[in-house]
């Protein structure tokens, strides 16, 4: 949402960006601010980029706090907190006019800028002074381990900058430092106040973006996309997980390592991604609901085995938390560039399903869809997420558990088992009852070689055609049953000037841009795809039929989604692509909507 609304009475919309040396408290400060805002009942949307360095390097932690649903990281930053110079150089752009820069004046001073209000905060010095003040009260060993309250000074300054009361922060400090003794609490409280005072002394006439506490009516979760995906997979009945660490997917394995045993499941850290998927395929073939999560390089390594799962009809879920760049690329940045690989990454062709999570809230539901679809159609399902969605913390309503519905694979009935049981029986929808080890009368050998209905190797052209048709018929069945369901419609319902088609984590960003355009009187419709392969061709064509122009924004280099739409529907779309590691800002999407609108209306827009 744009800046203006942030000052309207009792409505909060503030974007704060913290930058600093990795490992030096920037993330902690961000987390505390998030905690404060959440306590105030605000909705949070964070966006972080991590350095590819191990320690050191610059982290960027952006927080948007709003009194309504927060759809995107926001457009322009109103408050930039720069704890080091490198951070300021890298992330000191994209500030709103009249924005505030709070900088660590102990380490650098920024070049002046008339569009910006600069507030100096010698945060290191101030923190050290507060520690000095209590040093005689604390024992030598404890004193050595006691960090100077740099973050607390920052917290005081920030709370003041957004016109928020200090009380919640004081309560928080009491809670956190309580067991470290009264002196430590006192040190922190005075650090908080000195930070606040320092800001108040400089702020003068400047209008501050204010936050207005909001009563908390409904329970909310504060979670990351990866966490929601993990919880969703547990809700879907996950029984087996094998994985290999890779940024930014590792958190899913770490989460499940803690929680899966309580759900009766098993987790193995494999020696590589190939082994991870092989283990999942084994477990799935033996009857378990199985999943792995990885990122681009891992997905590349899984190409051979994913194809085995498609060919041998084994249900398995692979989550790809997409990151930036080809090869090792930009491992801590965001992208949607693995769509091609997810769809086409196999020699010859076997069926698979590709779906995408769209938001932190949605990640829960899409994880369930992934497992359900894998089970229903006995195919591999690739669930596309991305770094921006996966590492983002958002406040979301907790999922309504009673809305969960679970699908289990089709097993042969007693009658079907026996000498006539054929594992790959050619059925009208292509789905064949799958015997599991232990079932009497169901024995067969799974194989990736072309096989007949029984599962025995078979090489005739007729058999190859028949069995391939059987397998791909399942994809038609997916569309027939789920094609209309696995999209979301936003914006205007009827005829539209501009129709936007997108997938994945762009949902909120496009919704926000759409909203702004609607506010400006441009009729925008937004079709958000959750199912990407098989492609919901009819749904898209119907959508296209009510739009004058189609726009496809995506975080890819070549317009992978636009190409995929073209292949499936014959529709040519306007493309808005970018693949530099950073998600679109809503204003970038909005600007393109506006220019397209001007084009089709001959420039005569109202505003």
């Amino acid at each position, binding site marked *: 949402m744009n800046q203006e609304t942030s000052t309207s009475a009792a409505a909060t919309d503030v974007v704060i960006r913290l930058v600093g040396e990795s490992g030096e408290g920037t993330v902690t400060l961000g987390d505390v601010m998030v905690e404060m805002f959440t306590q105030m009942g605000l909705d949070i949307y964070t966006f972080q980029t991590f350095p590819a360095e191990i320690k050191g390097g610059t982290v960027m932690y952006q927080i948007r706090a709003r009194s309504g649903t927060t759809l995107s990281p926001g457009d322009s930053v109103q408050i930039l907190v720069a704890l080091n110079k490198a951070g300021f150089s890298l992330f000191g752009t994209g500030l709103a006019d009249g924005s505030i820069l709070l900088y660590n004046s102990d380490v650098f001073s920024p070049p002046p800028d008339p569009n910006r209000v600069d507030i100096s905060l010698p945060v290191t010095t101030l923190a050290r002074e507060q520690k000095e003040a209590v040093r005689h009260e604390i024992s030598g060993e404890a004193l050595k381990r006691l960090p100077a309250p740099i973050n607390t000074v920052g917290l005081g300054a920030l709370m003041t900058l957004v016109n928020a009361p200090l009380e919640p922060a004081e309560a928080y400090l009491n809670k956190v430092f309580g067991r470290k003794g009264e002196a430590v609490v006192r040190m922190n409280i005075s650090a908080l106040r000195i930070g606040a005072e320092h800001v108040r002394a400089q702020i003068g006439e400047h209008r501050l973006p204010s936050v207005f506490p909001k009563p908390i009516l409904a329970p909310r*979760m504060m979670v990351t996309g990866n966490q929601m995906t993990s919880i969703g997979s547990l809700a879907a009945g996950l029984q*087996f997980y094998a994985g290999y660490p890779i940024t930014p997917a590792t958190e899913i394995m770490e989460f499940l390592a803690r929680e899966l045993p309580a759900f009766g499941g098993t987790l*193995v850290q494999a020696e590589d991604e190939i*082994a991870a998927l*092989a283990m999942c395929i*084994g477990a799935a073939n*033996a009857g378990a609901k199985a999943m792995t999560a990885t990122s681009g390089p891992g997905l590349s390594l899984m190409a051979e085995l994913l194809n085995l799962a498609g060919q041998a009809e084994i249900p398995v879920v692979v989550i790809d938390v997409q990151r930036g760049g080809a090869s090792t690329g930009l491992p801590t940045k965001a992208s949607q560039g693995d769509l091609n690989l997810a769809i086409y990454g196999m020699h010859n062709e076997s069926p698979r399903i590709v779906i995408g999570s769209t938001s932190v809230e949605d990640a829960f539901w899409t994880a369930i869809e992934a497992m359900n679809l894998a089970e229903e159609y006995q195919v591999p399902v690739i669930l596309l997420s991305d770094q921006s969605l996966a590492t983002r913390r958002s406040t979301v309503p907790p999922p309504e558990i009673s809305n969960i519905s679970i699908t289990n694979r089709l097993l042969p009935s007693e009658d079907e088992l026996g000498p006539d049981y054929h594992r790959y029986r050619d059925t009208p929808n292509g789905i064949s009852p799958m015997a599991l080890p232990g079932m009497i009368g169901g024995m067969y050998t799974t194989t990736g070689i072309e096989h007949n209905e029984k599962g025995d*190797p078979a090489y005739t052209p007729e058999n190859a055609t028949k069995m391939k048709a059987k397998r791909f018929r399942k994809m038609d069945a997916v569309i027939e049953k789920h094609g209309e369901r696995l999209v979301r419609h936003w914006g205007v319902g009827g005829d539209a000037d501009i129709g936007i088609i997108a997938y994945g984590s762009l949902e909120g960003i496009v919704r926000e841009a759409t909203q702004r355009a609607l506010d400006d009187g441009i009729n925008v419709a937004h079709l958000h795809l959750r199912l990407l392969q098989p492609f919901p061709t009819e749904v898209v064509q119907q959508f296209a039929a009510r739009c004058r122009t189609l726009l496809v924004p995506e975080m890819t280099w070549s317009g992978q989604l636009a190409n995929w739409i073209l292949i499936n529907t014959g529709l040519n779309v306007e493309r808005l692509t970018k693949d530099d590691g950073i998600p679109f800002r809503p204003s970038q999407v909005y600007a393109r909507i506006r220019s397209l609108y001007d084009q089709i209306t001959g420039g005569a827009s109202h505003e």
Partner: protein
Amino acid sequence: MSNLAVSADKALTPRDYKSDLAPIWCPGCGDFGVLSAMFKAMSVCNLDPVKTVIISGIGCSSRLPGFVATYGFHGVHGRGLPIATGIKCARPDLNVIVVGGDGDGYSIGGGHLPHIARRNPDITYLVMNNNTYGLTKGQVSPTSMVPLASMEARIDPKRWKTTPYGSTEDPINPVALAVAMDCSFVARGFSYKPNQLADLLVEAMRHRGFSLVDVFSPCPTFNQDQTDEFYKRTTYDIPMDHDPTDRLKAFELASNMESYPLGILYQRPDKASILDEQEALRTRFQGHGSLSELISRFS
């Protein structure tokens, strides 16, 4: 494996484990001997066919699962072990046996071996080692012992197709490696000693933990060097007084590359298994899994 799932209602004969598919191996292939030793061992253990899964990769030897009347999984080249690990972890109630070739297991799949040895699940792994790639028609494998052609003469290129001038590379020694990996059961058999092989397989299947049985199984079609004759000449039975729990001795025995000891080289019955760990975790947290609790933890 241990805690074998056995047939409850009848004693099964070797013949009961034979499937409808006829083996497609060449006449004289060593793998026939392995298959009948398997049938015999399965019958001795009275394995329940429906609770048994035989997993393999790709190769002549990897076609074996189709010839046995159990559940089977003929996967992709080199991935038998991790597929089996998934099956066993998800379904500890099943008997899980992996079979394959020397190329499949020691070349493309060689990276998985140390890790399954560490994890030590109850899985038996039988490698039909013919010192060549049979299915692709006779190239060197990691266990090949290709005579180095004199620099004057060219080796018959029909015999060693990618190393027509011979090769200086020492073959790997899978049993010595397995001992070094602390693989908890390491044995070697020979397909022309089917009774001994059957006994070894029985021991391997009864062993609690991961067991490797490397079997010399000659390929008469593509390997005219390591023939049945060759192995009859160069193998010997491990003396009765060998203590398989003595790791250093086992390594010494296994390292012999002049003549090849047959039998159980190494066994460590006390090695922990991830299966126990996983079971313990599931038991410890049993009934704790609550979706609403998890959700509320983030609220």
